């Protein structure tokens, strides 16, 4: 069963007296363990879709199902719990808590739950993920003492702290130079392989899209290509619900 399912999702934003139809009938499935890129030019609706998968925005029409739960009708606390348990977030601007050091930033989500793991247990796990992202020697530093790439590594570690099944990353490389950006995506891919975490990231950078094994390409709020690649680099198109799949498949 798919871990994420969007079916006929629409999102309309009011804009002054008119409306912006940011997402227009999008449907797709994401399988657990996927490393997915949501690609498309600026304004194509990538962020809007990621926000709806991340349960921080709600569709105007259609439904988003996360791990078997239809998210539309959950209340604020239920949604928050779902986000906390199932989802991890990586932001374009890193969004670390400035007054907390690296260790504390990574620990932070662990302290938000109903059952907080014991201190020793937390320590062991945090040290493991800090090792994964290669920041062992920066544990006691504050975010403003780190480079952009380092900050995004902290953010990745923080997103992994609660052992979520899905990590969402909206243009995680947009504020980084291309070399650092690639390293970040490679790190994410590494975690995806090591821990089996599903990664969904958006980007408008072609080179980065290449690393994904499943690409959903958007244009003007519609899916124009939904393509799963096997590890042997063959491409395979998956039927997209909106029926707009193959329009520009040859891009």
């Amino acid at each position, binding site marked *: 069963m798919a871990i994420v399912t969007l079916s006929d999702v629409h999102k309309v934003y009011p804009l002054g007296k008119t409306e912006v139809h940011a997402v227009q009938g999008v449907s797709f499935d994401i399988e657990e363990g996927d490393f997915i890129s949501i690609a498309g030019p600026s304004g194509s609706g990538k962020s809007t879709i990621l926000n709806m998968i991340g349960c921080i925005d709600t569709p105007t029409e259609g439904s988003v199902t996360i791990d078997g739960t239809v998210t539309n009708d959950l209340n604020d606390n239920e949604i928050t*719990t779902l986000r*906390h348990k199932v989802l991890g*977030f990586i932001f374009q601007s890193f*969004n670390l*808590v400035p007054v*907390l050091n690296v260790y504390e930033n990574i620990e*932070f989500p662990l302290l*938000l739950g109903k059952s907080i793991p014991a201190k020793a247990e937390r320590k062991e796990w945090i040290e493991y993920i800090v090792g994964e992202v290669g920041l062992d020697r920066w544990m006691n530093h504050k975010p403003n003492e780190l480079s952009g790439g380092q900050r995004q590594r902290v953010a990745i570690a923080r*997103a992994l702290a*609660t052992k979520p099944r899905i990590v969402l990353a909206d243009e995680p490389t947009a504020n980084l130079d291309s070399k650092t950006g690639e390293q970040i995506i490679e790190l994410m891919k590494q975690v995806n392989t090591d821990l089996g975490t599903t990664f969904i990231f958006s980007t408008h950078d072609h080179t980065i899209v290449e690393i994904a094994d499943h690409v959903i390409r958007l244009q003007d709020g519609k899916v124009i290509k939904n393509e799963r690649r096997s590890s042997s680099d063959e491409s395979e198109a998956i039927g997209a619900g909106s029926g707009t799949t193959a329009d520009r498949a040859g891009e």
Partner: protein
Amino acid sequence: MRVLFRIAYRNLREHQTKTLIIGSIIALGMLVLVVGNSVLDTATAGIETSYTQNFTGDIIIAAEGVETPGLTIDSAFTAEGATPIIPDFDETVAYLTGYDGVSAVNPLILGIASAQIEGTGFGIVQLYGVDPERYQTFFPDNIRLLEGSFLTPEQDGAIVLSTASLEMLEETAARNIGVGDRILVTAQNEITGTKIRELEIAGIFEFIAEAQTLQLVSFISLTDIRILNGMTAQVSDAVIAAADFSSDEDSLFGGGGLLGDTTAAAGTSDDLFGGGLVEAVETSDSEIDFESILGDTSQRDLLGQTDESAWNYILLRLDNPDQAERMVAELNREFSAGGMELVAFEWIDGAGTVAQLTNTLKIVFNWLIVVVAVVAVIIIMNTLVISVTERIPEIGTMRAIGARRNFVRRMIVAETLMIAVVFGSVGILAGMGVTGILGATGIESSNQVLQIFMGGPVLSPVVSTTSVVQSFAAVVLVGIFASLYPASIALGIQPVTAMNQN
């Protein structure tokens, strides 16, 4: 939950200047609150001890109809009409003596008069008619005898004069006056009109406690105060008949007769100290009443007989003075339930405007503090709103990664409470320190008005527990109130705002 305080603390440290400014406002406010309330509490406690131990007892019982027991000179002047007499005195005393929680009982008659010596001089005396033994048991060491002796039981025609009245008399009469001298005391009452008694000075005293409003109190033998007040046997029962006498007098002397207008309505000081009266009536007799002029001796005989059970007030001393408020309520309930025509007051009601002023001052001071607190709340709130606004993406991020609304609320409240409690405590401690220093050195004043508020010429304030507890409660409330609005803004921050950053 430690993470909340960690974040709150570091945010406060991060914005040091802002924190210090807000903190100083809070600390200063608490300092003023503690010092002010400690000083006022000490003054109030001093006044309370001074009054209850020396003048009023813990509870004052009067006859029904009395609105304020006029134990001090200011209330004696403002009182309207004659003070009613306690009904069924002996039964009442027996009842009160046996009352649970009452440890001592002391009856009192009050009057006010002018004094002269050998036709000259002028002094005001506030008269306390007391049972000497009972009084001195009730107030064992409230006075200092400078000359002579206190009243003795069954003594007649005697006065124990206060130094203040004595000085007034000596100055105006331009001669020394001492024990053994005889003075002429003139009073007016609504029942039998003007009365003059010649009294021998048995002693000269002063109250040990400083109380401006009691400086003119002199003790007078019971028969004499009753005659001066018109508390005679028949009159106690037949006030109306007595009232007829006064109108007779009025008609008699109304036409510019012997005494001019000095017999007009009694009780006003102008009449009392008009000065014409004593010169007009030259006498060495100890009592002058107008009935003798009328030649109606039978009336004189009747009126001359004082009512030995006529008293104005009964003061009560309690086993536990802290119970006064409760017991006053209880007594008043039982008085009305038992059909007893009595009314009970707390000591403060009889202590006159001066003692009450300190209470009023305390209320005014605390209202001022409330105003200051509101201003402080607004300042703190404003600053917090700014800091919440600056942290919208941060708070949005926390919400996005799993912080519930409640967490955000507690984070904001923790920040405000931390600043309020930490700086508030510093202010409270500083206030305790300042109070301690003031207590050690003592606040001195030669200003009489200030002395009234201070309860004496030197005030050594003691830190009052209530002021510390109240201040702490106040600072916590300020913190909570100040965080309500900023917290509501923070609660409105949606997780999606974490994304809208560039």
